[in-house]
């Protein structure tokens, strides 16, 4: 199952806190698509997710400052 999360309005560290909350709420193996902005969120969220044992499947540019990080729980 695929879930989405928009953290484009959040600032560090709430960007990854919100990502972790969503990951905790979904089932193992599910996919989470995270919309975030360039800079700190784009640098930190995929790195932190990888460090904490999640699988980052892709990072894609969506539009303007917005990127989509696809994470598998």
């Amino acid at each position, binding site marked *: 199952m695929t879930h989405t999360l928009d953290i484009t309005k959040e600032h560090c560290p*709430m960007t990854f806190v919100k990502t*972790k909350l969503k990951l905790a*709420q979904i089932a193992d193996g599910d996919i989470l698509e995270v919309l975030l902005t360039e800079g700190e969120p784009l640098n930190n969220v995929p790195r932190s997710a990888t460090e904490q044992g999640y699988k980052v499947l892709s990072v894609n540019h969506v539009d303007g400052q917005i990127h989509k990080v696809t994470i598998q729980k």
Partner: protein
Amino acid sequence: MFDFTEEELKRYSRHILLKDVGVEGQEKIREAKVLVIGAGGLGAPVALYLAAAGVGTIGIVDGDVVDLSNLQRQIIHSTADIDKPKVQSAKETIQAINPHVKVREYKTFLEASNALDIIKEYDFVVDGTDNFPVKFLINDACIMAGKPFSHGGILRFEGQTFTHVPGTACYRCVFPTPPPPNLVPTCSQAGVLGAIAGMLGTIQAAEVLKYITGVGELLTDKLLTFNAKTMDFRKVAVKKREKCAICGDQPTIHTLIDYEQAACDLASHGK
């Protein structure tokens, strides 16, 4: 599940960010019920850090009122709290730090007659007391009730602590009986460096949070001691004794005991 509010997510963000705690660990902390016995030198930092961490229910047992001489180390109380019951002063400070915490006050000293009744409500017990009779009482009550607990003791520049979970060494495995009254001086007789209380109490608080979240290795079957003069820390292996009078194969203690206290401690109560 995981119905944290925006405010809680931000408040606990530094826990949630930790791989080993996360949202799941914070949920366990929120559901935990911890009993802190003694709102003094050790109980103060323990209760403060557990409250800040978001422990859902904190019980505090203390029959004393705040005395001017407490304030050198008992940082949960303030000058304005002098003569207030310690449980009330502690509750007010906790709720100022974290209004999510439910505080249960027991304005009494722990005794053989009330110990089991009080501890049965809790998941973990913290010994923050200052005298041997109560330390043995906490140990025996926790063994009888099958409760994990953290032992802590401080004097002058030194501290010691260990953690018990059912099946590991207990206080009596290490120290079979209390020393005779007045043989070992208490803090009120010998003095204590205030910051030592914070050093030991925060170790105890960390052990509680590790137990709740299941992170790391507890100080079970290990006695941690330190001397702040040299800042030497030592971990000594201790073992569960088969012949222990309370947790051994054939226990000889079947009811709780109120041991005699040192005379000056009795005199200081109710001050």
